[in-house]
């Protein structure tokens, strides 16, 4: 089972069955089919969610969604290979939604409208983790682990963090201020990066363990250029590996590599080398590639731009021999190719056309064919593949040495930023499992879910052209490394986001929690004290809402557990309701109406499809006719019964959203210092009526704190306001009673701000102690 967090909405996301004792049929659920874009993202970014948010102009919320799975939004917004766009259903209608550029806009928008920098995340765990390599993979793992409270140090050989992002990708595609802003964001969160620190030496891994690191993630990338293995290689000056070349350009002032340059290869590093050479003043730049343009791994757009800038691309041409004079390169012989049978990668194998050799003159040759990791430390039990890459389990990223994990380019060979990020997530999950003694089994990575079955009628969709990316004129590009693409303006971003077809089920951005069909129920697991909020799958909803409590057996994968499912929706006790309509007037969802009953009496009726189970009507009903599911009076009273005697007894009523990402450690801290904290969480704070505050005092509470989200972030319309009203009401009663009104507190805390939540509780406890709380 997942940890008992309040947001356990996702139990039913995976595939499984529920069976009920005495009932023959089994209810199958899941998996929740993601939209094709989300499904395609290796890092699991909820694409549809953030595109939807951007369509509504909510750029900040969109960025939050991106950051949940991708710590480098501004970078990926520029250089990601965007498999999401390839999967986009709009491809069938016209062109894919410009997802990558939207991501860029969200990130740039934050830079242009800076708010508070993120608060540092406190280290709550003892264990130290070392990450080798500050590329995207290492940074992702570090970010995930720091967010989980670990103490993480990233060691980076280069003078600056970023890996290939800084050493390889040129600034005209990825401006350094974007890179450094995103790295600063991460270091502000608490990731320590030690640049200029190469991990080297035969015993380097053992040393790290000796220094107290309990887990290590090797994310060293693949920086060593591979040999061409052709004649003349190594004989002449003027041959410079692509990565080494770009590295030089990126870290030190540089001059043109030569006047006439040949780049060999078809990937991003080839195209980047060619365009960089042009910018440095080379007068002629060729790319020699064995296959056709279709097979070229570099980005379409990049190839277009390179050609526009004047790069001559020789498709279907293979290098045969490097020729030179007086120890210097003078050119290269190439052979023309044609495509034959597909090879194991599915691409058609190029075969040489006899007698088709020709010479291209050049004074510099840049091989950009492939790279492998440069391993400068003893491998100590970590294995190498026959391509010289590190061997790690593809789901858990575990190497053969316990505690050592590896991922990114170091494992796959040259790949992409987003794959490196995906590995970083998996490694972080595994390290968490490893350090907490759980088996190293990762949930199915999102992209491995079956192809989403899309239930939208694509024929019905009208064509809307994809927004183009404004870019610098070609003439202005040479001689500088200024960013070529300008990015969208706000109106374009919104309009482009609105092209999204919203494939699949709800966008799951959690923003719409207050409007969409999420109807949570409470799931209690046999033998666990925890209560889990879960979202009920569509086909189970009416069953769950029709009974107050259902015992069931839940099967997910191999796991089988006995659970009790309790609807949180209230029901109207028809014999008690007196038709006063108080409930109707507070329900923000129009879930209640008065209908005729016997005689001249009307009674309230609940529409389970509309009700979101906030419980506000329960507190509004003066007569107890709204019988809440799960969080009923008996449940609340039982919580109050737990009041200890002696210490300062603090009762905190809060909603489940407020301080929802609570760390139990922090609560424990408040609990110790002479304070007995009794935290009672309802779905919405509006569920708590004044009677319970009084009951808490009567039961011996030294103080009662009511918290609510602030008006803007309240998930249930009037919830926050109702809590404030209860507070005012109770304060005046308590004043008459002669109880110190300071013993009752109220705080509006933005949803999810657990730092403020904890601080508020701590301050309130402090003020009670100062007042000599009993």
């Amino acid at each position: 089972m997942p940890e008992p967090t309040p947001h356990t909405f996702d139990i039913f996301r995976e595939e499984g069955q529920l069976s009920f004792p005495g009932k023959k049929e089994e209810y199958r659920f899941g998996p929740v089919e993601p939209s094709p874009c989300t499904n395609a993202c290796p890092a699991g970014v909820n694409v549809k969610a953030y595109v939807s948010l951007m369509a509504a102009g909510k750029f900040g919320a969109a960025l939050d969604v991106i950051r949940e799975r991708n710590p480098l939004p501004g970078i990926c917004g520029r250089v990601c290979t965007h498999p999401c766009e390839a999967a986009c259903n709009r491809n069938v209608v016209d062109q894919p939604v410009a997802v990558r550029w939207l991501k860029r806009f969200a990130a740039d928008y934050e830079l242009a409208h800076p708010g508070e920098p993120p608060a540092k995340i406190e280290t709550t765990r003892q264990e130290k983790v070392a990450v080798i390599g500050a590329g995207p993979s290492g940074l992702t793992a570090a970010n995930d682990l720091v967010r989980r409270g670990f103490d993480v140090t990233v060691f980076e050989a280069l003078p600056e963090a970023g890996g290939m992002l800084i050493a390889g990708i040129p600034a005209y595609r990825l401006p350094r201020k974007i890179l450094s802003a995103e790295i600063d964001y991460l270091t502000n969160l608490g990731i320590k990066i030690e640049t200029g620190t190469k991990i080297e030496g035969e015993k380097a891994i053992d040393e790290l363990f000796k220094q107290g690191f309990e887990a290590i993630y090797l994310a060293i990338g693949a920086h060593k250029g591979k040999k061409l293995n052709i004649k003349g290689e190594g004989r002449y000056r003027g041959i410079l590996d692509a990565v080494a070349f770009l590295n030089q350009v990126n870290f030190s002032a540089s001059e043109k590599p030569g006047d006439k340059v040949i780049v060999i290869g078809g990937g991003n590093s080839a195209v980047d080398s060619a365009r960089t050479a042009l910018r440095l003043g080379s007068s002629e730049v060729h790319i020699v590639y064995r296959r056709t343009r279709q097979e070229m791994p570099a980005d379409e757009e990049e190839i277009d731009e390179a050609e526009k800038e004047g790069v001559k691309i020789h498709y279907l041409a293979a290098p045969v021999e490097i020729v030179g004079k007086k120890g210097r390169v003078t050119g290269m012989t190439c052979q023309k190719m044609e495509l034959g049978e597909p090879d194991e990668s599915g691409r058609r194998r190029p075969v040489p056309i006899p007698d088709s050799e020709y010479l291209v003159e050049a004074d510099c040759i840049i091989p950009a064919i492939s790279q492998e990791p440069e391993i400068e430390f003893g491998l100590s039990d970590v294995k190498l593949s026959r391509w010289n890459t590190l061997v790690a389990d593809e789901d858990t990223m575990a190497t053969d040495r316990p505690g050592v994990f590896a991922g990114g380019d170091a494992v796959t060979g040259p790949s992409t930023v987003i794959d490196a990020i995906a590995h970083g997530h998996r490694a972080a999950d595994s390290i968490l499992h490893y350090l907490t003694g759980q088996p190293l089994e990762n949930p199915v990575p999102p992209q491995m879910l079956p192809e989403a079955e899309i239930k939208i009628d694509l024929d019905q969709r009208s064509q809307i052209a994809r927004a183009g990316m404004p870019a610098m004129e070609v003439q202005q590009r040479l001689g500088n490394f200024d960013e070529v693409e300008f990015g969208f303006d706000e109106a374009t971003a919104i309009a482009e986001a609105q092209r999204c077809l919203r494939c699949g089920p709800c966008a799951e951005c959690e923003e719409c929690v207050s409007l969409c069909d999420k109807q949570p129920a409470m799931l209690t697991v046999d033998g666990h004290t925890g209560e889990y909020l879960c979202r009920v799958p569509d086909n189970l909803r009416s069953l769950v809402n029709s009974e107050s409590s259902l015992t069931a057996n839940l099967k997910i994968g191999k796991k089988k557990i006995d659970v009790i499912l309790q609807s949180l929706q209230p029901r109207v006790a028809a014999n008690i309701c007196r038709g006063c309509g108080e409930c109707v007037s507070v329900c923000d969802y129009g879930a209640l109406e008065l209908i005729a009953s016997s005689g001249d009496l009307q009674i309230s009726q609940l529409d389970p499809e509309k009700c979101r189970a906030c419980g506000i009507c329960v507190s509004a009903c003066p007569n107890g006719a709204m019988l809440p599911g799960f969080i009923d009076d008996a449940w609340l009273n039982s919580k109050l019964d737990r009041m200890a005697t002696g210490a300062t007894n603090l009762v905190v009523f809060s909603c489940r959203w407020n301080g929802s990402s609570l760390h139990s450690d922090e609560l424990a801290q408040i609990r110790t210092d002479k304070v007995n904290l009794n935290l009672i969480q309802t779905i919405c704070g509006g569920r708590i009526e004044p009677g319970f505050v009084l009951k808490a005092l009567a039961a011996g509470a030294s103080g009662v704190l009511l918290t609510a989200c602030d008006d803007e972030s309240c998930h249930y319309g009037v919830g926050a306001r109702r809590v404030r009203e209860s507070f005012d009401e109770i304060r005046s009663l308590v004043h008459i009673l002669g109880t110190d009104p300071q013993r009752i507190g109220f705080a509006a805390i933005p949803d999810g701000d657990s730092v403020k939540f904890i601080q508020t509780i701590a301050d309130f406890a402090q003020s009670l102690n100062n007042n000599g709380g009993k």
Partner: protein
Amino acid sequence: MHEELYAAVQQTNALACLECGKCTSVCPVSRFSQEYSPRLMLNQAVKQDFDTLFADYDLWSCLTCQRCDQVCPSAISYIELTQTLRNNTDSSRFKGQCSHSGVLETLQKMMTTRDLRQNRLDWVGNELDISTDTGEILYFVGCAPYFDSFFTNLELSTLDAAISSIKILNHLGIKPVLLPQERCCGHDLYWNGDMDNFKMLAEHNLEMIAKTGCKTILFSCAECQSAFQNLYVENGFKVPWKLQHLSQFLAEQVESGKLELAPVAKPVTFQDPCRLGRHLSEYDAPRQVLKSNGGDNLVEMKQHGKGALCCGVSAWMNCDGTTRKIQNERLDQAYATGAETMAVACPKCHIHLQCTQQHAGDDGPKIEIRDIATITLERIG
């Protein structure tokens, strides 16, 4: 435990039940709820089927309005039997449905604390001449300060009755004593079967009153008066003072010529509180006051005096659909009189009937509900 209950069955004369059904035929709750029958409940008690009774929501539906006892040919005290049964339910059993999430019940219980420092006289302004230590006449305010602060959404002030009462007393040259630490009288707790807390409240009140040296205690709340006059005495407390509802005191003053009142200007009807009427047998005094000096304006509702319909809720328990029907009926009876004002002599009648009238919306008929003290004050020159 069952022996004790059986003793109560005997004491309340329940064994003499003829199963004539007169009780059920007059019971306001039975009139609107098919489920509820005092006759059947009695029957179960006689059969000693206590477990069924304890599990019954309707054990808390009785208003203890005493209509049934009044007509019973065997002189059975059904309400006392009800109280004993309630008193014997332990906390694990079904309890009545508390209205307003138990705020009022909890306040009552919290007032049992000995060293309370209430601010319950904050409403007494300079225009009121009162004493807080000694004096001949004590005015027992009741829980109006709490009601007004809690029922902010109701268009009423129960403290108006207290303020008016004090102004009338001042007008008569009387400086009443008010208890700064007055407690709830315990009426509701008693009828809900919480004897321990009821007794503690009684002790606190009696102890404080004894220190004032007063001779007479005046009440605006019929429930408080019935607690002192009936419940305290029945439970062995000494209550050596003259106890009067304000209306009884006013009637005396009018009678003796000390108080002269202008005629009531607009047609008025009177809501007999069940505690003042059937519990304390006072039907005339309030009417005398309302009628004094030309009483043509008092119009009676269809059910009044001994047969009056009560306000529908007792001790904040089981306010439900049936309650609403009783209250609707009572308000309809009031509207039918054509009176513009309904005089009440109990803050609870005031609250419950005002609540129902307000929830009926703006379209229906309306009657102004006011305490008899407030009406009387206006009639003083």
